[in-house]
């Protein structure tokens, strides 16, 4: 890399604000260089293969009691000056910002996870080879998906004298195998590309697709369910964005009631950004660390940035994001803690005949074994919130559903639509079992992930079948 470092650029921006806006002007700047690459395949061939080398500057200023933010991709001297000038001009025209929480004071930056240089500088051939392994392992089934790598190098500086620097890398793979219009899926997020085994994932997706053949339609109703980690990831994401969001909590739009036993005692949820692929500071320069949101069923906390923390009389939890004044602080690295001992050991009779392959590991096998009649659900799709406060969500199953009878997966089922309150479905007494092994699922953007074991719930409200 040539030219100024991210930290030097961030410092230049803050100094420009001081020079152009006067000594009382407050400023914080984040400069991020990113190398993002994604190799996408469909119909078992690579059809879209992209990469980008970008740089971005985010600036927030507070001048004469007024606040504005800006961003840009031009990091020449002229480009930085233009960014500072227009952001200062915008701030001066804004009404007073009574809720301005002030800048983050100098503080130590936590240690970030080590960066795997091989992943940071991965070549297109390496991603293509993993795709090739996935395709080959699918045994002739049509496949589709992606392999991606991401490397970010980011620096923060503010006019209060605080600065921070960190890097993050992530690798992820997500793919389906198709048989007669039904799909099986396998996806993983990891800190190292070398931890992603395309052949293993391709074989798993293919086994699921084979087991999903000839699905039958079931009537809607309340079913006991075993959710695989991909499905549980959707629960975590919606709980995070709508519930553990400090802004929504302040607005009384969140279900969260810290101190209340809102969930089953089996539920412990921790936001752990440094547990993998995370930068060590947020958009306001606050250090990031683990935050327990739910402990043994009791809601313990919601996420805060400096603004929501000030409103709540609390401290920032390191969850500031660009645009956070509108969207609020959102945890994006949630882990649902697995059962300490895991469910009972794997039970061989959990699959039979054509449904063999539906159950991918011992966690699932043990959870399925306890179900008298219910559904094994791999993935949820297109989930949307009907009401944020009760967190009633509608969506569909995807990538495999199977009927369980007397502890055995007996046959594939066509996709179902559900309408369910997520907190209610996870409420006291509602969790009948948890797997031991949390599997990290990638988000649509790098740096966010959702780790969960399989989960057995007493009831899930399916409100429609595949044909309506």
């Amino acid at each position, binding site marked *: 890399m040539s030219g100024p470092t991210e930290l030097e650029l961030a410092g230049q921006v803050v100094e420009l604000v001081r020079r152009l806006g006067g000594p009382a002007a407050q400023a914080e700047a984040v400069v991020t260089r990113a190398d993002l690459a994604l*190799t996408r395949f*469909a*119909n*078992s*061939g*690579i*059809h*879209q*293969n*992209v*990469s*980008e*080398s*970008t740089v971005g500057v985010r600036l927030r200023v507070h001048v004469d009691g007024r606040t*504005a933010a*800006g*961003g*840009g*991709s*031009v990091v020449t001297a002229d480009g930085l000056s233009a960014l500072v000038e*227009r*952001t200062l001009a*915008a*701030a001066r*025209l804004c*009404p007073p910002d*009574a809720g301005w929480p002030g800048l983050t004071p100098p503080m130590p930056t936590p240690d970030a996870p080590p960066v795997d240089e091989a992943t940071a500088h991965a070549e*297109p051939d390496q*991603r293509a080879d993993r*795709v*090739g392994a996935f395709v080959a392992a699918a045994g002739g089934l*049509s496949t*589709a998906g*992606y392999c*991606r790598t991401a490397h970010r190098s980011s620096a923060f500086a503010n006019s209060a004298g605080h600065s921070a620097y960190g890097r993050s890398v992530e690798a992820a793979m997500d793919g389906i195998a*198709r048989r007669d219009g039904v799909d099986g*899926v396998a996806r993983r997020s990891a800190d190292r590309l070398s931890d992603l085994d395309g052949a293993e994932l391709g074989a798993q997706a293919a086994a699921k697709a084979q087991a999903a053949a000839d699905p039958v339609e079931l009537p809607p109703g309340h079913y006991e369910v075993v959710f695989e980690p991909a499905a549980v990831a959707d629960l975590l994401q919606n709980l995070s964005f709508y519930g553990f969001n400090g802004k929504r909590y302040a607005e*009384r739009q969140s279900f969260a009631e810290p101190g209340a036993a809102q969930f089953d005692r089996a539920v412990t949820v921790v936001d752990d950004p440094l547990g993998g692929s995370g930068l060590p500071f947020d958009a306001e320069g606050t250090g990031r660390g683990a935050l327990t949101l739910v402990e043994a069923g009791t809601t313990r906390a919601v996420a805060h940035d400096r603004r929501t923390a000030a409103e709540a009389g609390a401290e920032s939890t390191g969850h500031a994001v660009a645009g956070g*004044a*509108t969207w609020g602080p959102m945890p994006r690295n949630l882990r649902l803690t697995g059962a300490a001992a895991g469910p009972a050991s794997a039970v061989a009779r959990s699959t039979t005949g054509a449904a063999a392959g539906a159950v991918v590991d011992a966690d699932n096998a043990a959870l399925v074994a306890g179900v008298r009649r219910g559904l094994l659900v791999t993935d949820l799709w*297109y*989930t*949307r919130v*009907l009401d*944020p*406060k*009760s967190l*009633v969500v*509608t969506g569909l199953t*995807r990538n495999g559903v199977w009927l369980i009878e007397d502890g055995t997966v007996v046959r594939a089922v066509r996709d179902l*639509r559900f*309408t*369910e*309150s997520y907190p*209610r479905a996870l409420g006291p007494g509602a969790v009948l079992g948890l797997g031991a092994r949390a599997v990290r699922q990638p988000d*649509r*953007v790098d740096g966010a992930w959702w780790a969960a074991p399989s989960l057995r719930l007493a009831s899930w*409200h399916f409100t429609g079948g*595949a044909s*309506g």
Partner: protein
Amino acid sequence: MTEFDAATAAVQAALDAGARYADARVMHRRYESMTARNGDVEELTQDESIGLGVRALVGASWGFHAVPDLSDAAARDAGRRATRTAMASARVPGPSVDLVPVEAVTASWASGCQIDPLGVPLSDKGDLLVDATRTMAEHGADLAEGLYQIWDTAKWFVSSEGHRIDQRIRECGGGISATSIGDGETQRRSWPSYRGQYGTTGWELVESLDLAAHAAQIAEESRALLTAPLCPAGETDLILGGEQLALQIHESVGHAIELDRILGWEAAFAGTSWLDLAQLGSLRYGSELMNITIDPTIPGALGSFGFDDEGSPAVKRDAVRDGRWVGVLAGRDSAAMASLDYGGSVRADGWARLPMVRMTNVGLEPGPHTLEEIIAATDDGVLMDLNRSWSIDDKRLNFQFGCEVGWEIKKGRRGRMLRNPTYTGIGPLFWRSMDMLSGETVSWGTPNCGKGQPGQVGHTGHPAAPARFRNVRVGVSA
């Protein structure tokens, strides 16, 4: 070095490195948004982004690389990297790639704009949102929110076939929402829709929305909804307002007719389509009232442009004619694969993203009725409007929508408000049940259409008017 020079250098470098086709887009975008809450400006953001994305085709494989640097050296390096990435794609090859022919033109195009939205003083724009949100708060809203967004995008496109096209597209819009919070649930009313109405126009669009004039009413309605009766569950005749029908078109027609989905290119993420190319021209999609066009030439609609992002000129086409499926949204490569002779619907959401099949303006041609006529002709039903939630399966068949508000329709009259209205169905069955359609068409803009990996956000337009659908399942709840 001009933008055209940078794009040309990138294309030439890609060819020199072994590509058989290459194109490059330089894009310069300025973006501004402001949000207000309860009478105060909440956030003001102004972004400016400039960069170049180059696409290279080697054999049957594509590669793409993007950089924020328009220097000759950076542009050439981007071209070479795109070609190198395409060569890596060949390790897992797909079928051969052809491009349907498009005349290589030198052209300029700009969207219409009476009032430059970035030229309107920030204080005026702030006053608009502050006043409207204050009024909503004064009329009972617990959460009164307002928003505007502005995009001013200049593009320079060059291809190895000789295209040299520059465009300037200005887009803007805004809206207000009032949320009332009750015991265990929230109710929301918006104007003119949640997060606003948008178009390829100047600030005159926002002025025409007259946000302040509607603030008090929607606040009072959001409060009243907390105690309104629940939308009953069952099958009934459903009248949809134009804004909700626009999203219905977007989700259950627009995405379904995307050729990349039909060909399986989006199978792992956005999904496929229930449509089979073998039935193009013969499949009955809906009732004979259903005439859907793909029309990027509509002045002011959000999905309008002069040329798409691979140099195809904007052309109006039929997607559904008299209820029969007759057209798709396509790009040059997907069209060739499907043995069709047109592309024209490929766009990228920025210089760092690969152009892909996107909706332009996909909407209904006007019908013969008015909303009041439809209500008067309905003995027993529900009128729903303004989207609150949307969900549809990966084949674009099974949908469920929630709206902000419902009204009971009894004996041809609009009655009491209903809360938590939802409806669900299967796309073609639903469209075949449409028996009345209004001519009160509005081109609704959707600025948040997600698709692709890495994710892209598309801006699409949807001409729509109120319509009636028979025997629809409504009132689905947890």
